[in-house]
Every structure is written in structure tokens, then in C-alpha cells.
């Protein structure tokens, strides 16, 4: 009779009926929801959130919580919950494995079900008051495991006297199994992601290293081929310059030849420096002294281009560096600032600051030029990258500086200022290098 009557029900009626009798069909649905939800994602946090959300639909007045074992397997950490009061959340945040109800499940792997939970002697003393105050009567806790290992626990609490029945328990255990599987997948996935990332990094480093090696070999060959003719050019120029019959006019022209050939030689030298054909000798040195030296060297040119130099050298401890390398870095930065300002209208101020922090000595070289174009910022330290017109920069100065600073264990970075101009900041570590 009932069956026949059922046949005549509209789909809407059938749904209402199913809702009134939640014994069988809804449980399947819940399990399906949990399984579907947790298998959709490979993110651990996502798995936990969707699982807990799906489970609170079992019946009304539910409190659910999900604990996972800590790495040392001594503590259970609350990773997801629904319906918990702040107090209850607090006592459940971290639970010891082996003690209390949830702690026992995590240790034994066996389900615990209670009807009047706050009367149970196994409830943790710290939790007893909260459980009593919240009137949690029914309680069930099942282990979450995967591949024979306990990963955590899934607990439900209920404020009504209605006990958790067998189908509900079966549902919870099945859901816990699904969660275990999903967690395992997520962990495997994140582990392989981590390995993949590591592999990618190693790969990039390898490519970079190979590239540098190739640049080094190329530079060495180019240097040999170019330095020989330059030797002849500079040598002959030198001979003519010291020749008694050379007139002043010719001497002027020869001066230009020598200067330009010298410039070519410096480019080759920078290229070689960049390719690290030079073994630096580190000793304690004063950054401010090197900065002074470089500013002295550039003083005339800066003055010529109407650039005011402002210095602020705070007293600093020595850094372990190669003086020549430090000079190369500072010279490149000052040169860069000079060139940025030389063709830029407005007031021209070069500010060089040196100051100590706890672990570093910092140097800032700041200009009032046009700043660094946004699109150039990420590439500014790349070899051969230059924003200068041809003939004004080889595009190696900053990358050479970057290489040197990095080798010294320091940081070189560039930034633009809101009120115009760019800053290059070098941070050099204090103390003797370990190697």
C-alpha cells in the first residue's frame, strides 16, 4: 500500500518525505557530498573545510571538529570545525595524543561513542566544564586514517538526548575514510609540487650557471682577440705621443685615439670581471673610504655637469671585501647616477649615504634623474641590458655590480622615489665570510 501510495507522490512530495525520514537516503547523499567535495580539491585546507561543512548536515544541533596529528605525532591540532563556541574551540585547539576522548581515538584508532559525554571520566579535565556548560550530550569520534596510518580524528557532538545510531556511525566512519584518502592525495600532491618546484629551481640555476660559463668562455676568447690589436693601437699611440716630432695638433688627436682605445679596453675588462676571471682578495675595508675615493675620481666630471654631491657617511664597522671590487660597484652606481642626471633637466643632486644596521653596512646612491622606467626595473641587473643610447653604456656595469655584491653575500636593489629620481641600495654583511 505504502509503495503504491509512494508511486502517486509528486517529486516535490517525495523530497519532503525524504527530509522527514533522514535514515538512509540522506546519508548516502551526505557521503556522496563529502566524497565529491574532498576529491575535487588537492589542497589540504580545502579538503578539511568542505568535509566539515558537508558533515554538519547529518542532523540538527551538530558540532563537528576535525583534528590532525602534528608532525611529531604527539599533539592533535584543530584544523576545522563547525558550530563550536569560542570556549569550546579554545579547549580543543591542541589536544594531547593518548589522553582524553579524542586523544585516545588518535592513539588506538578505535571509534568512541558516548551518550552523556560530560559524565565520562575520560573527558579531559580542561574540557569538562566547557562540555558541561555547552550541554553536549551525544559524542562520537572516529579516526581518520590512510594506508594504515592514523592522520587525525573526526568528531561530532550533539546537544540533544538522541544518541548517535549505527547508520550515523557508519556514515561518519565512511566519511572519515574519504577524508583520509583525500588528505593523503593532497599531501602526495603537495609533496610532488614541492619536489617539482625544487627541480625547477635547480634547473634554472643550472641553466644560469651554464650560461655564465659560456659567457665566461666567450669573454675570454673575445678579450684575447680584442686586447691584442688594442695593445698595438695603444702602444703605437704611446710611441707617437712621446715622439719629439709630434706636433701639438697631432698630439691632441692621438690623445683621443688613446682615450677611445682605453675605453674599448675597459669594456673588455668589465666583460671579464663579469665573467669572473678575477679572484678577489677580501680584507676588512671601510665602505666610506671607498666611496670617498670614487667621488674624488668622479669629482671633476660631476662638477662639469653641474651636479651637486651630498654625502652622509655615518661611522660604520669594516666589511670583508675586495677594495677594488667595492670601488667597481660604487663607481658603476655613481656613473649610472651621473648619466641619468646629465641629460635630465632640473636640479641635479647626487646623494651618497653610508650607514650601519645590526648586520649590514648599507650604501645608498641616489640621483635626481628621470627614475627607472617600470618595464626596465625587473631587467635592470641583466647583463647587456641598458636604457642608455649606444655608446654611453655597455649594459654591463650594473650586472657586474650585482654579481660582485651577491658574491659578497650582500644585496643590491634599485627603487624609484615618489618625488622623482632613483636609488640604488647596497647592503653588505658584517663579519668575516665563513669560507
Amino acid at each position, binding site marked *: 500500500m505504502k509503495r503504491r501510495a509512494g508511486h502517486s507522490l509528486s517529486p516535490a512530495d517525495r523530497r519532503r518525505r525524504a527530509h522527514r525520514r533522514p535514515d538512509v537516503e540522506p546519508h548516502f547523499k551526505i557521503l556522496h557530498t563529502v566524497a565529491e567535495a574532498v576529491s575535487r580539491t588537492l589542497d589540504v585546507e580545502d579538503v578539511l573545510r568542505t568535509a566539515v561543512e558537508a558533515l554538519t548536515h547529518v542532523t540538527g544541533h551538530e558540532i563537528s571538529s576535525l583534528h590532525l596529528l602534528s608532525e611529531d605525532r604527539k599533539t592533535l591540532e584543530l584544523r576545522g570545525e563547525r558550530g563550536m563556541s569560542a570556549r569550546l574551540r579554545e579547549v580543543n585547539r591542541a589536544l594531547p595524543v593518548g589522553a582524553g576522548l579524542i586523544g585516545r581515538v588518535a592513539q588506538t584508532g578505535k571509534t568512541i561513542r558516548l551518550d552523556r559525554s560530560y559524565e565520562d571520566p575520560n573527558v579531559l579535565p580542561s574540557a569538562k566544564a566547557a562540555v558541561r556548560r555547552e550541554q553536549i550530550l551525544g559524542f562520537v569520534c572516529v579516526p581518520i586514517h590512510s594506508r594504515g596510518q592514523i592522520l587525525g580524528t573526526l568528531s561530532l557532538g550533539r546537544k540533544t538526548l538522541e544518541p548517535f545510531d549505527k547508520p550515523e556511525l557508519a556514515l561518519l566512519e565512511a566519511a572519515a575514510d574519504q577524508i583520509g584518502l583525500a588528505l593523503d592525495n593532497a599531501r602526495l600532491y603537495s609533496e610532488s609540487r614541492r619536489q617539482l618546484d625544487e627541480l625547477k629551481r635547480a634547473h634554472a640555476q643550472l641553466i644560469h650557471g651554464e650560461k655564465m660559463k659560456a659567457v665566461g668562455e666567450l669573454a675570454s676568447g673575445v678579450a684575447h682577440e680584442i*686586447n691584442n690589436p688594442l695593445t698595438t693601437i695603444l702602444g703605437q699611440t704611446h710611441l707617437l705621443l712621446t715622439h719629439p716630432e709630434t706636433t701639438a695638433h697631432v698630439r691632441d688627436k692621438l690623445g683621443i685615439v688613446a682615450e677611445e*682605445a682605453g675605453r674599448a679596453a675597459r669594456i673588455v675588462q668589465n666583460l671579464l670581471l663579469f665573467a669572473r676571471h*678575477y679572484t678577489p682578495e677580501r680584507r676588512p675595508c671601510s665602505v666610506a673610504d671607498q666611496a670617498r675615493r670614487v667621488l674624488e675620481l668622479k669629482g671633476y666630471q660631476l662638477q662639469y655637469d653641474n651636479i651637486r654631491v651630498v654625502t652622509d657617511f655615518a661611522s660604520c664597522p669594516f666589511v670583508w671585501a675586495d677594495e677594488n671590487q667595492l670601488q667597481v660597484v660604487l663607481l658603476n652606481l655613481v656613473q649610472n647616477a651621473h648619466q641619468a642626471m646629465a641629460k635630465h633637466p632640473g636640479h641635479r643632486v647626487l646623494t651618497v649615504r653610508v650607514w650601519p644596521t645590526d648586520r649590514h653596512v648599507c650604501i645608498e646612491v641616489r640621483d635626481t634623474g628621470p627614475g627607472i622606467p617600470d618595464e626596465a626595473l625587473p631587467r635592470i641587473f641583466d647583463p647587456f641590458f641598458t636604457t642608455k643610447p649606444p655608446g654611453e653604456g655597455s649594459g654591463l656595469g650594473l650586472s657586474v655590480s650585482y654579481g660582485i655584491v651577491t658574491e659578497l653575500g650582500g644585496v643590491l636593489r634599485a627603487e624609484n622615489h615618489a618625488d622623482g629620481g632613483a636609488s640604488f641600495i647596497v647592503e653588505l654583511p658584517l663579519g668575516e665570510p665563513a669560507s
Partner: protein
Amino acid sequence: MALGRILVVDDETPVREVLTEYFATEGYDVEAAGSGVEALAAVRGGRADLVLLDVRMPGLDGVQVLRRIRELDRRVPVIMVTANEDVGLAKETLKLGAFDYVAKPFDFDYLDRAVAAGLARVGEQAGRPDATEDDPWKTLGCAAFGAARAMGAPARASTGERLESAALAAARNAAAGRSAAADEYLAEMQLLLDIAAELGDIPAADRALVESALEAARRSLALAG
């Protein structure tokens, strides 16, 4: 009288030519060799007081030639020439017995000093009376180079190199008969010595050695004048 006999070894003709002319103008006797084999023949014939040797050459390269030269003659100073600033290799050659290394293109001031220092040292080692005792200028150069090479790197860069240059310039001017100019360089050397001593850059023994050489040079100038 020539300042010494230099053997220039380089496989590139233009480089060889310019170095030959340069050192000839400076007052040295120069012989050029275009290969390691030619260079060894010249050393074997005892025709070189100092060898300027290119590292990278076809056939026998500079390092191989250096080894052979060391087998033939332990004294003749060899200055290695590198075109790609391979400092690692250059330092390796120092262990093999090279006297110094210079980079192409040349810093002629440095080249002058290195050559003069090499020749001064060989004179000192040989203990030839004509090299060290009779010529106060060589003694002076030798003392200046010895003192500069014993200094730490920063001191050498600030006072040491100027001391070397002044010694060379003094000798050059004296040889050319310009005794006033030579005297000025001697005075500069004295000043540099005082500065170095004040900064603690030069040991008392080195200073005394240079000062006695300075004294001898002044006497020689007075005699010539």
C-alpha cells in the same frame, strides 16, 4: 750603454713590433721571437737578460716555454703577458718561477717598473759587481723595488708604486744627463720614504737600504755635475 737585453716573445707581429720599438726607445737592447721555439733558442744562446713572454701562443704556449726556460736558466726573469686577465693562470705561472705578470693592453708605467724590477733582481742575484755595486742607479732601483714589493697591497698602491716610478725616472734622467730633474726625483723618493715610514708602511731595514742607495745616487749625481 744599454739598460739590459729584453727578449719579447709574442706570436702577433704588430704586438712584437710595437714592444720592440718601445723598449728600444727606453734604452734597452731588444730581440723579438715569434714562437716558443725561437724564444728558447735565444735563451739558450744567452742573449736575454729578461723575457717578456705571451701566455697564449700556437705551438709551444707561454707556460710550456716558461718551464723550459726554468730548466735552461734559473736566473733569467720571465714576465708573463696575458691578454684575457686570466689571473688564475697568471698566478700559477708565478709558482712555476715567473717573476711577474702583466695584462694586455699594457699599462706602460707598470710595464716599465716590472721590467726594471726584474732586471734589478737578476743583477742582485748574480752578484755581478757591475750590476749592483758600480751602478748606483741600479742599486737604487733594486732597493726601491725590493721595498715596494715587500709592502702590503694598499701601501704599495699609494706609496710603493710612486717610489718605484720615481726611482726609474731618476735613473732615466741621470742617464740622459739631466741631473737637476734626477735630483728632483731623488727628493720625491725621500719624501715618499718619510711618508711611508710615518704610516708604518715600510720596515726600518728597507728604509735604511733605500736611503743609503739614495745617498749613493746623490753622490754620483754630484760627481757627474
